[in-house]
C-alpha cells in the first residue's frame, strides 16, 4: 500500500501532466488564429476565414479542457501540499493571483466574443478579441513560469521563522532561470501547435479534402515548425547552461555523470544504475558532454557524487531528457524535409502526409518529457534550498488520496480519448463540408425568434 506522500505526488504529477497538454496547444494556437483573422481582414479572402472557423472550434475544445483541469490544481495546492503555501505562499500567492487576475479573466472574458460574437461585433472588435485571448494565454504562461522558475532558482526573498517573505518582486519574477524557461516553453507551445495544425491538415488531405484551407494551413504550420525547431535547439542549449550554473545536480542526472570528470562523454544511450552508481550499456560520443556544457573538450562536469543525498533520481531524468532531445531532432528533420518538399513539389507524397499525421501530437510527448526533466530534476526539493517535497505533504488519509487519484485518472483517460476522437472526427467532417463560394461573406445570424430588446 502506497503512503500518502507518494499518492499525493502521483496525483499532482497526473494533474499537471494532464493539464499542461491543453495550454501547450492553446498558447500558440491562439496566435495562429490571430494570424488567420488578421489575414482575412487584410485580404478578405474567405480561405482565411475557413481556416479560422475550423481551428477556432478545436481551440475552444482544447481551451475548455485546459480551464477545467487547471481549476483542480488551485484546490490541490491546499489539500495535498499544505506546507507549500504556508512556507512560500507569500511569494507563490501573488504570482498565482496575478495569473488569475490578468490572464484568466482576459481569456475567459473575450473567448465568448471570439467564439460566438463574430456577427454581433465589428470585424475589428472581433480581431481585437482574438488578439486579447492570445495575449491572455501568453500572460498565463508568463506568471506560471515565473513561479515555477522561482521554485527552481529562488531569489529576492528572505526567510523569517521558516517562512519566506518577499523582498524584491522584480528579482523574484525575473529569477535566473525564468527567461530561459519561458522562452523554451513558449517555443515548445509553438511547435506543439504547429505539428498539430500540420498533422490535422495532412489528415484532411489524406481523406481527399481538395479545398484550399488545409493546404494553406499545412504550409503555414510547416513554415512555423521549420523556423522554430532550430531556434528551440539553441534556446534549449542556453537553458541547459543556465541549469548547469544554478542546479548542477540536475545536469549531472540528465547526463548520467556519476563521478566528477573532465572530458565527460555524451551518452546517446545508457541504463543508469542508482545502486552501483554507474551506467550499463553505454553508447557514447567521447568528450561531447563537456564540450556542449563548457565549450571545452576537457571541461569538468560535476558528478552526482558531489551531491550525495541531495540529487534527483537519475533514471527518469536521464531517459526523459533523451526522449525530449530525440523527439526534437525528429521534429527538426521532418519539418525541414516536408517544408522543402512542399516548396519544390507544391504537394507532399502520401507517406509523408501519414508521417505528419503520426506526428500530430508529438509536441505533447516532447513537452511532457521536458517538464519531467525539470520537475523530477528538482528533487528532493520543492523549492530549491527552502522546502523539500517531504515536508510539504499533507496528512490526509492515504485511502482518500488513493480514491480521488483513481477517480482523476479514470476521468483523464476518458477525456483524453474523447478529445483525440473528437479532433479527428471534426477533421473528418470538415472534409465532407462543401466548399463555400468565394464571394461568401460572414453570414448574418439566423435568429431563432424575433429579438426583443430586454
Amino acid at each position, binding site marked *: 500500500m502506497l503512503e500518502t506522500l507518494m499518492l499525493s505526488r502521483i496525483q499532482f504529477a497526473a494533474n499537471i501532466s494532464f493539464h499542461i497538454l491543453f495550454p501547450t496547444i492553446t498558447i500558440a494556437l491562439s496566435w495562429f488564429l490571430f494570424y488567420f483573422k488578421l489575414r482575412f481582414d487584410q485580404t478578405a479572402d474567405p480561405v482565411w476565414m475557413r481556416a479560422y472557423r475550423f481551428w477556432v472550434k478545436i481551440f475552444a*475544445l482544447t481551451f475548455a479542457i485546459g480551464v477545467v483541469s487547471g481549476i483542480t490544481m488551485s484546490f490541490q495546492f491546499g489539500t495535498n501540499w499544505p506546507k507549500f503555501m504556508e512556507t512560500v505562499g507569500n511569494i507563490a500567492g*501573488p504570482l498565482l493571483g496575478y495569473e488569475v487576475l490578468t490572464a484568466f479573466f482576459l481569456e475567459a472574458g*473575450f473567448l*465568448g466574443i471570439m467564439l460566438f460574437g463574430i456577427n454581433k461585433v465589428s470585424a475589428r472588435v472581433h480581431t481585437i478579441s482574438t488578439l486579447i485571448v492570445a495575449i491572455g494565454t501568453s500572460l498565463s504562461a508568463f506568471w506560471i513560469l515565473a513561479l515555477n522558475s522561482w521554485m527552481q532558482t529562488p531569489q529576492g526573498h528572505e526567510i523569517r521563522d521558516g517562512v519566506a517573505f518577499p523582498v524584491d518582486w522584480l528579482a523574484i519574477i525575473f529569477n535566473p532561470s525564468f527567461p530561459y524557461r519561458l522562452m523554451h516553453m513558449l517555443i515548445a507551445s509553438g511547435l506543439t501547435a504547429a505539428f498539430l495544425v500540420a498533422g490535422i491538415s495532412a489528415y484532411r488531405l489524406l481523406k481527399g479534402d481538395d479545398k484550399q484551407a488545409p493546404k494553406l494551413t499545412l504550409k503555414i504550420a510547416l513554415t512555423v515548425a521549420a523556423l522554430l525547431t532550430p531556434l528551440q535547439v539553441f534556446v534549449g542549449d542556453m537553458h541547459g547552461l543556465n541549469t548547469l550554473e544554478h542546479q548542477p545536480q540536475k545536469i549531472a542526472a540528465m547526463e548520467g555523470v556519476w563521478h566528477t570528470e573532465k572530458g565527460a562523454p555524451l551518452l546517446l544511450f545508457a541504463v543508469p544504475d542508482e545502486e552501483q552508481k554507474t551506467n550499463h550499456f553505454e553508447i557514447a560520443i567521447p568528450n561531447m558532454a563537456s564540450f556542449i556544457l563548457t565549450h571545452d573538450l576537457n571541461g569538468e562536469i560535476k558528478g552526482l557524487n558531489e551531491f550525495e543525498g541531495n540529487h534527483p533520481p537519475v533514471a527518469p531524468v536521464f531517459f526523459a531528457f533523451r526522449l525530449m532531445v530525440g523527439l526534437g531532432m525528429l521534429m527538426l528533420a521532418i519539418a525541414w524535409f516536408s517544408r522543402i518538399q512542399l516548396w519544390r513539389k507544391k504537394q507532399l507524397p502520401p507517406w509523408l502526409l501519414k508521417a505528419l499525421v503520426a506526428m500530430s501530437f508529438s509536441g505533447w510527448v516532447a513537452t511532457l518529457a521536458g517538464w519531467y526533466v525539470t520537475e523530477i530534476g528538482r528533487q528532493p526539493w520543492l523549492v530549491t534550498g527552502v522546502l523539500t517535497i517531504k515536508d510539504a505533504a499533507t496528512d490526509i488519509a492515504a485511502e482518500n488520496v488513493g480514491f480521488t487519484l483513481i*477517480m482523476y485518472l479514470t476521468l483523464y483517460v476518458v477525456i483524453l480519448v474523447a478529445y483525440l476522437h473528437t479532433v479527428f*472526427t471534426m477533421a473528418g467532417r470538415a472534409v465532407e463540408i462543401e466548399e463555400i463560394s468565394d464571394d461568401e461573406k460572414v453570414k448574418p445570424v439566423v435568429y431563432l425568434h424575433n429579438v426583443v430588446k430586454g
Partner: protein
Amino acid sequence: MFEENTLAVVFVSLMGLSVLLYAILDGFDLGVGVLLPLDQKDDADTMIASIGPFWDANETWLVLAVGLLLIAFPAAHSFVFKELYLPTAVLLISLVLRGVAFDFRAKAAFSHKPTWNKVFKAGSLFAALSQGYMLGMYVMGFESTLAAYSFSLLSAFGVAAAYSYIGACWLIMKTEGDLQIQAVEWAKKSGLICFLGVLAVSLVNPLINPEVYAKWFSWPNTFYILPLPIICFALFIFSYIQLKQLPKVNDKGCWRPFVAAVVIFTLCFFGLAFSFFPYIVPNKLTIWETAAAPESLSFLLWGTIIVVPVIFSYTAFSYRVFWGKVQELRYH
C-alpha cells in the same frame, strides 16, 4: 504599503465579492444545466446557447475566490479543503465533466450528443450539490456529527434548488414561447424549495452557533440587520406573484424574477458574511491570524485595484454583446 489589518479586511471583502459573483453567475448557468431536459433536443440546445458565451468567465470567479483564499489566507485554505477533501473532489470532477461536455456535445459525432447532454446535466447537478454540502459543513463548523451531515445534505439540495431557481429566472429572461412558459414553472417549484432552504439555514445557523445568535439578537444589531431577512422574505413573495403573471404581453417584466433572485442571493450572502465575520473558518480561525504577509498582499492589491474595474467593464461589454433573447449558438 497598507496596514496589516486593513489588508486582511480588503482581501476578505474581495474574496467575498468573488464568492457572491460566482454564486450568482455560475449559479444561473449551473442551474440551467440542472434543469436541462433530456427528451427535448431543441430546448436543450436553446438553453445551452443561453449560457454558452458566459459559463467560462463565470467559472473564473471560482478560481479567483479559491485563489484569494489560497493567497491571502493560506492556513484557512489548507484547513477548509482538507476538511472538505472528498466533496471538493466531487465538485472538481463535476466541473471538469461539465466543462468538457459543453464543448463535446457541440462537436462530437451527432449520435453522441444525448450522452454529453446527460453528462452536462449530471455534472451541473453534482457541482451544485457538492457546493451546497460544503456550505452546510462550513456553517456547521466542520463537525463530524450526524446532525452536521444531515444538515449538509439538506443544504446540498437547498443550493441545488437555489441554482435551479436563478437558472430558471435567467431562462425566463432569455427565452420565449413554450420554453419560457416551462421556465416559469421551473422557477415556481425551485423557488419554493429555495425559500425553504434559506429558511432552514437562517434558523439552524444562529441555533448551533451561540456567537452568531448573540450577533443577530442583541440590541442595536437586531435593528440594523433585521431588514435583511424581511426584504429577502418580501422578495420571495414578490417573485412568486410575478411568476404567476408571466409571461406577459410583449414580454414585459421578464427580467424581474432574475433581478429579484440576484438580490435574494446577495442578501443571503451578506447574512452569512455578517454572521461569521471576522472568522474565516467559523469559530476556529479569524482573518487576522491567517492573513499572508502584508508585503505580499500589498503587491497583489495594487494589481487588483487596476485590474478588477477592467474585468468588470469588459464583463459588462460581453453581456451587452449577447444582450436580449437567445439566438442559435453557432461556432461561426
